[in-house]
């Protein structure tokens, strides 16, 4: 029944760096419906941003290459589209919010000018109509329209991020890629921005891919969650499944290493060791060197993503005590 709005199948993205080849994304498949938010959780280097950039087609030409898989958006494979078509999709159907609001805005253009530029590129509006649309976008994100002609340095971090969001939403995209949209913001501002994103998502019936390392943010905004480690999805399911019964040892490790505000744990239980060096991946399961449940079998060959409960997938076959 489900015609997924976004379907990614076995995506593989390679980076060549100094002669060695690194698989930043190593066979990732995800599905996203309109109006739904998928949280993509992982640490630095896990491949989350690469994934988002691959969808948008903005991977650095020289060093990165998509060498496998499909990204099907509303029936069309984005990887097979010519540049001209991608230009029409980028910003209009698919939009991205980047991580650092401090550098995402052009310092020598007014904020109004930047949003208007995005509007004019994609909509057939004349200058005045574009400006009006821009003003309404600014109001929607909580910025008085009088600030149209101000420059980014005159805004605080939270407001800059709101401008970035206004730019991303200016053309009513159907899919929003948000790369750590609130990591650089203060907690109270983060709360405001997340609430705003949620409202806008409902208003526009947007699909959203939310990339973050913060499980709290995921709990507040996502319906489904995918955990990514070393370029592969290691666990995937609804928010309830992942939060109430995390199956993969890495997911459990993430929850276990979180300091909690509500209890007095004497010592945190961090995941031992370090994330793997992408150019020097261990054989078999990438998490095995750090896994408390690892066994001989884990080092031999790829571990497949198995459905351990309806809709709940896990890339681990070790029997764990509950």
């Amino acid at each position, binding site marked *: 029944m489900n015609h997924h709005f976004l379907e990614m199948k076995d995506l593989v993205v390679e980076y060549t760096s100094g002669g060695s080849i690194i698989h930043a994304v190593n066979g990732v498949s995800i599905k996203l419906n309109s109006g739904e938010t998928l949280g993509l959780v992982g*640490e*630095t280097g896990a491949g989350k941003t690469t994934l988002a950039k691959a969808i948008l087609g903005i991977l650095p030409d020289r060093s990165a290459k998509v060498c496998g898989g499909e990204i099907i958006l509303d029936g069309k494979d984005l990887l097979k589209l010519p540049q001209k078509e991608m230009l029409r999709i980028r910003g209009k159907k698919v939009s991205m919010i980047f991580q650092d609001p401090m550098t995402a805005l052009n310092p020598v253009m007014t904020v109004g000018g930047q949003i208007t530029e995005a509007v004019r590129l994609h909509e057939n509006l004349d200058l005045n109509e574009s400006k009006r649309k821009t003003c309404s976008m600014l109001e929607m994100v909580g910025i008085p329209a009088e600030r149209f002609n101000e420059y980014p340095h005159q805004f*605080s*971090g*939270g*407001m800059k991020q709101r401008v970035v969001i206004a730019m991303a939403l200016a053309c009513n995209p159907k899919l929003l890629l948000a790369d750590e949209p609130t990591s650089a913001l*203060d*907690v*109270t*501002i*983060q*709360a*405001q921005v*997340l*609430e705003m994103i949620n409202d806008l998502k409902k208003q526009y019936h947007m699909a959203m891919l939310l990339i973050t*390392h*913060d*499980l*709290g*943010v995921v*709990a*507040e905004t996502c319906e489904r969650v995918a955990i990514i480690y070393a370029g592969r999805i290691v666990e995937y399911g609804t*928010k*309830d499944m992942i*939060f*109430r019964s995390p199956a993969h040892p890495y997911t459990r*490790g*993430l*929850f276990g*290493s*979180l*300091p*909690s*505000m*509500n209890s*007095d*744990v004497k*010592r*945190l*239980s*961090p*995941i*031992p060791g*370090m*994330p793997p060096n992408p150019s020097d991946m261990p054989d078999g399961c990438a998490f095995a060197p750090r896994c408390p449940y690892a066994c001989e079998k884990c080092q031999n060959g790829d571990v497949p993503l198995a459905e351990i409960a309806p809709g709940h997938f896990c890339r681990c076959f070790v029997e764990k005590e509950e």
Partner: protein
Amino acid sequence: MATLLQVEHLKKYFNIPAGINHAVDDVTFKIEKGETMGIVGESGCGKSTLGRTIIRLHDATGGKVLLNGEDITQAKGKELKRLREDMQIIFQDPYSSLNPRMTVEAAVSEPLQLSKRYNRTEILEATERLMDLCGVEERLRMSYPHEMDGGRRQRVGIARALALNPQFIMCDEPVSALDVSIQAQVLNLLMDLQEKLNLTYMFVTHDLSVVRHISNNICVMYLGQLVETCPSKDLFDTPLHPYTKALLSAIPSVDLDNPMQRIMLKGEIASPINPKPGCRFAARCRHATEACGQPQKLEEVMPNHFVSCCRIKEL
């Protein structure tokens, strides 16, 4: 337990073209030996400036800081050098806090060299010991910072801070720039070191969940003013100041069964430049009245629980 550090009405103002930036305005608290005081607040609240003023990287504009009973705000020259050995700092950004052109070993041994009290062998041994203590692997000791990841660099930063055997360490957001799984490792290390070496920490951070774990007491700051201070558990169980309540409610929770009731703050953070007298949170506070325009005082509302709010008794 002895009081190691006492801060009294500390002020730090900066002169900038736009006026006077009241970065730290009349802050008072004390830290007992061997304990950790968490300083929380959002960006621009002055917590970093507070920390740096206390350890004399900035000179205070007013007020006093007493270390072991001695006023250190006016110390100069040799005395200041001696004091610096007792108070060290761990920086937030592991990428910029180490000299990119110095090996990690040189960075850790530098404080020892500068103190001129040790010969070469002693310095080498001490450096080895410090690196062992902080979990820096032997094969990395002659590396340069750019060859190591954030977590390891931060361990080097900690080893450097311990070199001179300080009593007090100012930790300026030491784990904020690290990945979640590495954060936990470094926090555990800090807590272990505190136990082993009887260190006293001032832990500055914006992350409330982290601060609960590591602190005995917490101070909440807003725009340079201290609004609430109490033991950690009390802050989370019974927050009193309206800002504290809003701050706690804003944190996204991983507990699906107990979602947070958000207290939404209206408006934006005011500017600390040439501020009006009185409570600086009043502009965003739902309970603000005329009286909030008067300078506020820190009052003990519950045992050991101080709040700076004139309306606290009614709320």
